[in-house]
């Protein structure tokens, strides 16, 4: 017997509002259709009414988890339009913030995945760890969600004591190696719950143009930190974890291994941080007429900002944002096709969707 099951926009298995209509044959999903737009905010259009200071604060609100990444990408684009080059120390601080945010995002996701697996103890452990990462972010920036770290030409705050941050990171790393990493890379319970479900083949991943850990779990070895290095990433050694199975387990493993690589990058950045200025100082900015694009590897994948400016204008003429979830979400249809209905909440969560970004 065929029937349709609507999941969402408000549902216990969804963290944020979207809707997935699933067409089922018995317990098996034969097809699915996604609906988004329940919280569309029109931020891109609003950005055209804000000046170059206000627009940074506005775009930081696109996402509540990777807020720093949005201002980083926007500032990089605006630096291309003003000809400003941030000092080396600012580039290192940007890397530190970006990698701490990646840790925060991946650990948060691990907690939600654990909850959906029925592993509530791990959910609690992950959220306790996440708090500690947020403490480090707060110690650096003074804020826990919207950090206000990036400005055009550098960063707003220095890291005055990199060694203290490094001590905090190493403590976090030890805890993660003891708790999260073994669970998500080798625990029989987690592996068997996630193996073989929500498969996105390599061909489909390429065809859908998915990005980030979702792509890397399907054998697509793309990471902008390696392919098109920005900030100070070209100074660091790190691996890009890639898995070929394309299932939920592969996405789990990729993120767990990325946590370790983030710690590795943080250690290098905090140890080698160059001395000197961290921003270009107070001055009136002059924008060239033109369009600049900037891309950054956010925790969920590639974020793209296209910023257009007209000379002598205080406001951007256009700000376009392509978030990773916007590119990854359509692939959910292919992941849930053929899956058991009971697996679909975990499959959807496995792309680490962010509806706030999508409904920007």
């Amino acid at each position, binding site marked *: 017997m065929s029937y349709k099951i609507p999941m969402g926009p408000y549902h216990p298995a969804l963290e944020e509002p979207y809707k997935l209509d699933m067409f089922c044959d018995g317990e098996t999903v034969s097809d699915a259709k996604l609906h988004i737009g329940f919280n569309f905010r029109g931020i891109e259009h609003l950005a055209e009414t804000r000046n170059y200071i206000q627009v940074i604060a506005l775009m930081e609100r696109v996402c509540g988890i990777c807020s720093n990444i949005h201002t980083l990408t926007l500032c990089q684009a605006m630096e291309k339009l003003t000809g400003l080059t941030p000092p080396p120390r600012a580039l290192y601080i940007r890397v530190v913030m970006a990698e701490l945010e990646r840790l925060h995002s991946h650990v948060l996701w691990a907690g939600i995945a654990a909850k959906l697996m029925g592993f509530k103890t791990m959910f609690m452990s992950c959220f306790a760890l996440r708090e500690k990462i947020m403490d480090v972010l707060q110690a650096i920036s003074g804020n826990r969600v919207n950090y206000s770290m990036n400005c055009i030409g550098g960063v707003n705050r220095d890291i005055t004591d990199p060694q203290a941050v490094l001590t905090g990171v190493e403590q976090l790393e030890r805890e993660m190696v003891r708790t999260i990493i073994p669970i998500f890379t080798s625990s029989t319970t987690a592996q068997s719950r996630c193996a073989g479900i929500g498969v996105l083949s390599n061909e489909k991943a390429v065809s859908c143009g998915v990005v980030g850990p979702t792509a890397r779990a399907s054998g697509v070895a793309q990471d902008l930190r390696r392919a098109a290095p920005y900030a100070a990433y070209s100074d660091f050694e790190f691996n890009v974890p890639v898995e070929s199975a394309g299932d939920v387990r592969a996405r789990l493993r990729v993120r767990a291994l990325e946590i370790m690589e983030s710690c590795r990058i943080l250690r290098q950045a905090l140890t080698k941080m160059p001395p000197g200025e961290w921003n270009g100082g107070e001055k009136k900015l002059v924008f060239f007429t033109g369009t600049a694009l900037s*891309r950054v590897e956010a925790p969920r994948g590639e974020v793209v900002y296209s910023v257009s400016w007209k000379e002598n204008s205080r406001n951007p003429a256009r700000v376009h944002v392509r978030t990773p979830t916007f590119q990854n979400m359509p692939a959910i249809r292919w992941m849930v096709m053929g899956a058991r209905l009971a697996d679909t909440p975990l499959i959807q969560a496995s792309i680490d969707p962010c509806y706030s970004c999508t409904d920007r």
Partner: protein
Amino acid sequence: MTKIEGIPQLLGTTETWVDEGGVHWLPASELHVRQVAAIMNEVHARFVTITAVELSGGQGFRLEYHWDLGGELLGFPFEVSGNSIESIYDLCEAVDWIEREVHEGFAVDFIGRECEPLLLRAGDRLGVNLHEVVQ
């Protein structure tokens, strides 16, 4: 000749890449969007996004199509004098949502496909130029 350098030749244009704002732009007015999409598939480029920009004085829109090739960002601008352009959805599955978003946000029609509601839930407002509404 690198893969990127060979693309203008594959597209049959004598224009060359212009590097600006972090993008290799190919500003060739004779190019057709479906031809570009087919060549991007041929060279295994990854679709990134479409940015719609409304031109001043009611001159229509400029749609900037972007692909990634080995970490390099390629840009192809297309001037849309009316409010329609051919869809490339059948050639590139990854454009599905962004074509729908541009249709909703700027009232640009993509010929050859139906655009179902995406970001805006109220059906009667679909295809409204939000840019004008905000201004």
